[in-house]
């Protein structure tokens, strides 16, 4: 066993953290640069564009690397967002803490003041929280708006067999329920909310835009509400502020500045898209579709908007243009080409379904069943069995399926190929590797009970009313078979609460990225709707933290020790009294983390050519905010200036048009917390103890500074 002191004059752990974090710098902000990761030995390379994938490809076997990976995985596992922020701040704060150590600040003081400073900032950020209320009311308006486009664009593509009584009866074209059968596609959606997802280039060139908006104000009620927030016709004077009245309309007022509410899903989604408009459009469509579906089921139109993300699945189709992406109600999966005729036959009838939780193979036994090895089977009669045990089992399964008239079997695990073939001959479709949430959705909608073995199937377990159709992208008029000789089918029932997002990308290397981005958008929406609040993003919260910390530091400088009794774990230590000397320094170092963050975002979006220029911009506004007396109201009033300064300097002459950017509240705060926790954990570590190491196992190079026990 060996122990190595890592806290000599320079802190190795902190330096390691900083260098790990540096690799993720380009993933910060709305414009993410992709990276190629090359494997020199195997001549392989992958294209990545998210921090998570990056860390997956890095060698994180060192102790500090492991801790970093652990923190990132924890953030990802809980929130699925905020990982780039986490990584960047780990780096920024590591260097900041090192700076503190360099200045001779005792470790305990750094730990105490930094966590106290972060707490204080988080409290101050309450003023930048935007509540989300009554989104459901607005959804009704939007749903009517949807119908027009949806009907037209989709009818030709969904393959509704005209000669079946069942489907026709249920999905009359005038029946409102049919709207839900519809597939929302990207094109239709994009046409509907141009003002949120307009590319920035256009904004600059299109001088007629205000007129277009003006027109839309008169024509479309749905557009009006959301458009108001961005309309230059509500241009405010310096001391007047816009607020949204409960009915959703904006009003000019001279009340104290406040973050207005966010009542519109489209606006929320646009704000949370963080530059990835196409993925967010899909995620938003998924939310709408799920909610409308729920409303129809509950027969109420005033349900609060909830988003159950476990009922959202993705289906990736590489090789198709991106415009083919869409969101559908039901379960989309791939089946081999050979099932073509079977599906053709099945799609004309309501199908009865059995759900199997385990594998559908002869040898499968439920988890926890221990197979005994000491059992020998002997034949008594001396006759050899005519059929193999696999054959017997297959026949038995088929008998059960025939008895209960089951035509569709959804299996969570693997399926015996032999059985699949046999089933195909008897017009039964077996689908393996079905997501467990999908299974649950079918269980609820088709009133089926998932079982582990086919032998358990009885009348109560079998669900009914599932429809099986070929699935094609609305734009796709070709054969539904893709290049890998598999074709997509759509399974659904009348009341199914399950949505599949079909993701397409012409470049298959980008498929993974596309899926990651879609999920991160979906999770951002999910968190926002769950928490019922968002932060005003686009740098606003970081700006407020910066100015808050500066004010704090100045307060301590001016008023000395007795303003604020700090907290140290041991309140009797001499460090408590020396807290006031070091506090301004440490708070400045904490602030430098956010400062670097903002300037990195600004450099990444190329809004500022140099870090220095970005830094000047930040400094200028933080100073202004502090001079104004109320930093949060300064940030609210100057929001468009700040946010456009961070992201799009080119439109500085068109400020009123800057849409709001939102951030999730708890995921963001937790990312900060985790980042700081990790840095402080590493900071407080003074040695690394490697267990199970023998003298001879280490080469002399590594032996430097290692002590043996």
């Amino acid at each position, binding site marked *: 066993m060996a122990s190595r002191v890592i806290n000599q004059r320079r802190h190795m752990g902190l330096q390691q953290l900083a260098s790990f974090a540096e690799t993720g710098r380009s993933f910060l902000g709305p414009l993410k640069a992709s990276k190629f990761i090359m494997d020199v030995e195997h001549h392989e390379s992958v294209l990545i564009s998210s921090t998570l994938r990056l860390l997956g490809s890095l060698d994180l076997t060192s102790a500090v690397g492991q801790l970093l990976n652990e923190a990132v995985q*924890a953030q990802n596992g809980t929130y699925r967002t905020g990982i780039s922020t986490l990584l960047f701040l780990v780096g920024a704060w590591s260097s900041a803490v090192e700076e503190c150590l360099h200045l001779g600040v005792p470790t305990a003081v750094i730990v105490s003041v930094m966590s106290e400073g972060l707490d204080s900032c988080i409290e101050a950020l309450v003023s930048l929280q935007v509540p989300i209320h009554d989104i459901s009311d607005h959804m009704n308006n939007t749903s009517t708006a949807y119908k027009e486009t949806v009907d037209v664009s989709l009818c030709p593509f969904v393959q509704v067999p005209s000669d079946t009584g069942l489907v026709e009866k249920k999905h009359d074209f005038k029946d409102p329920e049919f709207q839900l059968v519809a597939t929302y596609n990207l094109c239709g959606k994009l046409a509907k909310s141009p003002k949120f997802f307009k590319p920035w280039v256009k904004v600059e060139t299109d001088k007629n835009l205000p007129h277009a908006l003006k027109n839309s104000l008169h024509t479309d009620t749905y557009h009006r509400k959301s458009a108001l927030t961005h309309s230059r016709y509500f241009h405010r004077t310096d001391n007047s502020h816009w607020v949204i009245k409960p009915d959703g309309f904006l009003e000019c007022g001279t009340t104290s500045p406040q973050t207005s509410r966010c009542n519109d899903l489209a606006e929320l989604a646009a704000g949370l898209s963080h530059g990835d408009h196409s993925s967010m459009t899909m995620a938003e469509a998924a939310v709408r579709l799920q909610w409308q579906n729920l409303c129809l089921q509950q027969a109420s139109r005033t349900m609060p908007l909830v988003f159950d993300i476990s009922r959202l699945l993705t289906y990736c189709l590489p090789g198709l243009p991106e415009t083919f992406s869409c969101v559908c109600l039901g379960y989309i999966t791939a089946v081999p080409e050979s099932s073509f005729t079977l599906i053709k036959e099945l799609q004309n009838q309501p199908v009865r379904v059995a759900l199997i939780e385990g594998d559908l193979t002869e040898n499968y036994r439920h988890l926890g069943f221990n197979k005994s090895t000491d059992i020998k*089977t002997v034949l*008594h009669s001396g006759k050899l069995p005519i059929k193999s045990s696999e054959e017997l089992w297959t026949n038995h399964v088929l008998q059960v399926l025939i008895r209960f008239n089951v035509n569709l079997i959804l299996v969570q695990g693997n399926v015996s190929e032999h059985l699949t073939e046999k089933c195909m001959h008897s017009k039964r479709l077996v689908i393996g590797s079905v997501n467990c949430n999908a299974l649950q959705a079918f269980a609820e909608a088709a009133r089926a009970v998932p079982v582990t073995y086919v032998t358990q199937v009885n009348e109560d377990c079998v669900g009914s009313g599932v429809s099986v159709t070929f699935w094609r992208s609305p734009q796709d008029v070709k054969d539904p078979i893709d290049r890998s000789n598999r074709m997509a089918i759509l399974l659904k029932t009348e009341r199914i609460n399950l949505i599949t997002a079909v993701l397409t990308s012409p470049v298959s290397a980008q498929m993974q990225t596309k899926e990651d981005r879609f999920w991160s958008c979906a999770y951002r929406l999910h968190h926002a709707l769950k928490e019922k609040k968002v932060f005003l993003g686009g740098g606003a919260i970081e700006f407020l933290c910066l100015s808050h910390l500066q004010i704090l530091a100045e307060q301590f400088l001016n008023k000395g020790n007795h303003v604020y009794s700090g907290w140290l774990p*041991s309140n009797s230590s001499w460090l408590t009294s020396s807290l006031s000397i070091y506090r301004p320094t440490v708070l400045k170092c904490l602030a430098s983390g956010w400062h670097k963050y903002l300037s990195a975002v600004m450099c990444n979006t190329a809004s500022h050519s140099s870090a220095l220029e970005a830094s000047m911009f930040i400094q200028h506004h933080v100073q202004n905010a502090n001079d104004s007396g109320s930093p949060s109201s300064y940030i609210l009033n100057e929001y468009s200036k700040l946010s456009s300064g961070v992201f799009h300097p080119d439109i500085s002459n068109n400020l009123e048009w800057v849409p709001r950017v939102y951030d999730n509240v708890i995921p963001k705060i937790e990312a900060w917390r985790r980042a700081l*926790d990790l840095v402080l954990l590493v900071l407080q570590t003074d040695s690394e103890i490697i267990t199970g190491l023998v003298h001879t196992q280490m080469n002399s190079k590594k032996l430097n500074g290692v002590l043996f026990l």
Partner: protein
Amino acid sequence: MSRLEAKKPSLCNSEPLTSELVRGTLSVLKGIVVSCYGPAGRLKQLHSGLGGCVCTTSQSSALLRNLSVSHPILKVLTTSVQNHVSCFSDCGLFTAILCCNLIENVQRTGLTPSIVIKLNNYLLSLCTNYLKSDTCGCRLPVDLSSTHIFLCLVHSVLTSKPACMLSKKEIDHISALILKAFLLTIPESTEDHVILGKTIIVPLKGQRVIDSTVLPGLLIEMPEVQLRRLLPVQKSSTLKVALFCVSLSGDFSDCGEGTVIVSSQVSLENAVLDQLLNLGRQLVSDHVDLVLCQKVIHPSFKQFLSAHHIIAIDRVGVTLMEPLSKVTGTTPIGSLGSICPTSYGSVKDLCPARFGSKSFFHLIPNEATVCSLLLCNRNDTAWEELKLTCQTALHVLQFTIKEPWVLLGGGCTETHLAAYIRHRVHNGTEDIVRGGECSQTELRLLAEAFCRALESVATSLEHDGGEILTDMKHGHFWSAPAHPPSVLNWPELLSRCGCGLHNSQEELSWSVLRSTCHPFAPQTCLPQAPVGSASNLTVDCWTAKLSGLRVAVETANLILDLSFVIEDRN
């Protein structure tokens, strides 16, 4: 063909403590434990060097568990500290540091081991007698009717473990939860024999610490999908429970040695399933509402039970079995034969519960002393540390309710005790000298080494180069910045003593702990007023510290007494 190899002769080292290597490794170990000590202690990253999980800790239990030491002397030391920690949870680092200090200091005196051991034991008895006596100046009685001291105790345990990464607010929250959990384990009916219940710590990693909570009863984790599928409880009265510790998965793992030969017409699996279904019929006829199984229940058997409106929960796990049997009053059923009606128990209610990303089945007993502490922390490392800390705190509370005293923490007990021993040895003749077993000089020499060792433990609390002072009235621990500008303004420079009982405005005089100060009599009676007030005291568990003191002295004696190390090299 076999080959005989001559045995290597054993290696014999005399006077192991004089060897440079042993001294070197001992000082490395001391360096590790000293740097971990106290709220400002530095953390250690323990890992295998091959990737895999990293344990960041400053607790003796986690540290020593993973340390593999080579030399037998170090093994003696770590093993006895580990034994102490396994019994008392707290004061492990104290024990290790004191033991190392004693070995080091005593060696410098140059006294023979026999006299050292005699004197050490004598000094130990002086300490323990003093700590047990009513005149003890560093012991506080615990008022069982108020939570103040209990909260201080839990608070002290939590703050001394920086790797938990808790903020002040979080420490307050967790302290309150631990105390609440502890109170839930105390039975309501007071008979002669009070048996404390159990707190089960349920992990909920990745969530915020503030989301931690305490619930009476038990939480059984299960997947969300399974939870949704469970039947709603139909009865309003108590539910009849059967608890199985045998696997109901329908396998036949217990065939013993040898091979079982089965005819091809017989299906063993079906036979076992039939047996299970027979069992199920008995459960139905006995009107059981809830079947709990430590292991797996066969899916078909589950289906049978749910068809008869019996809720079946499997994979409860071995850790929950004892508390489950306790809260429900069941006897775990270990066979598939017929069930004795007395084995059944009951629960008041059960309901689904969701916390964070996990879902649980919440079992609410009629009356029981078992509760669940849902513990959250942001990452795995910090969670493991927090879990250990909570277990320590709960354990320490149990000791304190048994022996209702606490010792002043923050180094005050050590400095006070040292002052007491020094004063006692210098003023008046001790029995041991009167008995002629040693001379007064020898006693004074060793007492000085002993007191220095105690004081060094207190000094180990300082990690940032500060100065440690002691006051000449109470003998408490005071912390000051290094190189204080002038001696005159000490009352301004200092704030409170280590335990928080005294403040610097009480007209005290101080001396630097390292300097040779003349012995003084520390005040023995405690001021009553500040103890009861809301002041935040740092206190230590009396039982654990007393044992730690004993273990440290006895281990040091054992190590000092070693004259040969004989190593078998075969």
